[in-house]
């Protein structure tokens, strides 16, 4: 079913789909979902490092986007906007989790939590798995810089840190990745 739905049956006029979805047309919105779900899920999975959370984030991104469609006017940029929205949701969640961890958890609990995440269902690729096992902040910087192509200044602003920090996190992430891939 997925494969079928992804096949372009007619030239896809995304702007028209967005306008129809804004009127409440669920069929049009499902078409938009089919086009963009893979991209949204990929960035959520890599930022969250965990498939269950990535599924939750993907759904939330599409629900939020639906709620906000009525005020969204740049139909042509829907994909970019949706992607950004998903990244923001995922980063918010990372920040919230860090705050929770700092506030409440004892060291052992934090360890248990992150172990549970890291044994979650992963893609078979070594590199993907190694990325998933990076510390949260370093992983976010690596995903946004090396996979999503963001600039340090943008990443720093989203994470609320300096570009010096994002550069050193990127260096650290790459070093950890190479160590993981060697072992």
């Amino acid at each position, binding site marked *: 079913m997925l494969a079928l739905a992804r096949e372009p049956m007619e030239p896809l006029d995304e702007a028209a789909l967005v306008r129809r979805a804004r009127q409440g047309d669920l069929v049009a919105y499902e078409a938009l979902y089919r086009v963009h*779900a893979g991209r949204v899920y*990929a960035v959520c999975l890599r930022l969250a490092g965990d498939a269950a959370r990535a599924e939750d984030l993907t*759904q939330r991104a599409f629900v939020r986007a639906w709620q906000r469609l009525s005020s*969204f006017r740049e139909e042509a940029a829907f994909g970019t906007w949706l992607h950004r929205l998903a990244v923001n949701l995922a980063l918010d969640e990372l920040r919230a989790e860090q705050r929770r961890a700092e506030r409440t958890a004892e060291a052992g609990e934090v360890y248990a939590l992150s172990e549970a995440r890291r044994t979650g269902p992963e893609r078979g690729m070594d590199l*993907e798995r190694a*990325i998933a096992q990076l510390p949260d902040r370093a992983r976010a910087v690596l995903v946004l810089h090396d*996979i999503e192509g963001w600039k340090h*200044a943008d990443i720093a602003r989203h994470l609320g840190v300096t570009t010096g920090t994002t*550069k050193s996190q990127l260096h650290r992430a790459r070093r950890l990745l190479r160590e993981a891939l060697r072992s």
Partner: protein
Amino acid sequence: MSCEQRYLVDEYLDGELGQDEAAAFEAHLGTCASCRSELEAVRALIKATGELPRELEPERDLWPQTAEQLRPVEKGGGKRRWILGGGALAVVGLLAALCAGVIGVGLLWPTDPSLEPARALLSEGDLPGALAAWTELSQDHPADAEVVEGAAYAALLAGDLDEADRLLSTLPDGPEVRLRRAMVAQRAGDLDAVAEHGRASGLPAGQVMAAEVHLADSEPDQARELLRAASAAGGSVGRTADTYLSLLDADDEGRALAEATALWSVGERALSCRAAEDLVVGLPDGLERDEQLMLWGSRCVTSRRPDEAEHLLDEVLVPPPGQQWRMHALRGMIHAARGEQTLALTTFEQLEQGGAPPQGVRDARATAASLTDDPEFAVALVGDQRSVAAARVLMEVGAVDAARRVVPEDTVLASVLGTP
């Protein structure tokens, strides 16, 4: 064995090194096997990560579960009517519209060319000089309405509100005089006088000012009557009145937001921010909510309430198009208001490097400087800009030497301050 320059490999490959640094590092690569091998390893890793698929299929179809969470699109009625009908944008413009109204009133002020020098003093911010010049003129020409109005205006800007009202009260009563007395009363925080003069002026701007006092006092019926009259006149003030009316006619939240906005306009900033905070956070998701969050975040921080401002900004889901930099500028101001010097300065530096509108960042820096009482910090915040606004902020915190350095040449303020 590792070389101590290997930390440069990442920045070199990412194109983050300057031309000279890159050339120096390339020369180093020619002689250092350790760095060459590091370079190849990092390059291979970047290539591999860059080749990862941009799309990954979830292991199960998430659509059915997502679709269940999608509520039908609301069409008209209830809360969304005012919040989606462009109403919120109009609310964002409220203050701007009122400022335009005030500037419009300002344009009614004297146009006689012989008064030009005194007007120039005003427009360039030399308030003591302007007040002195206008007072002298008004003493020489006590029956000249233009001169007396000019002197009152200078007194208003210089903060001598009693003198401003006294001067205006010597003029024959009329709509414009009443409107100006309402403006002076608003500056003085005399709300009863604002309502009285605003209503008596019979002019739309005065009616809106009077209506705002009634709204701030939770007297919506009296406010409505004045707003309907102002609305009939059209123009930007009429649109402001329309926005208030649509908020009042919407629902409880709309009325509360109208009151909070009115409180801000009448100068009750702390009350206004407190009233608005929960309301705005509770708005339905959407672009308008994000705009309102940023608007009130900005109001909170400029009235030195950084914690409320931060709370509001944290709630923004996606900044409105083109407004990302403004979010960070506001965060810079929050840091400044809290005295977090390094964070504030870093934020503005990053904005400058990140391509934010230069004038916007300069204004944000000057605003941030007005939020601290520490002269040295204010000087650092202002940075290397030269503007009358920055000079005035620095004068206010007592950094007069620094104000001399940043005041643009060929302005009256520069000649008053002297050269460094």
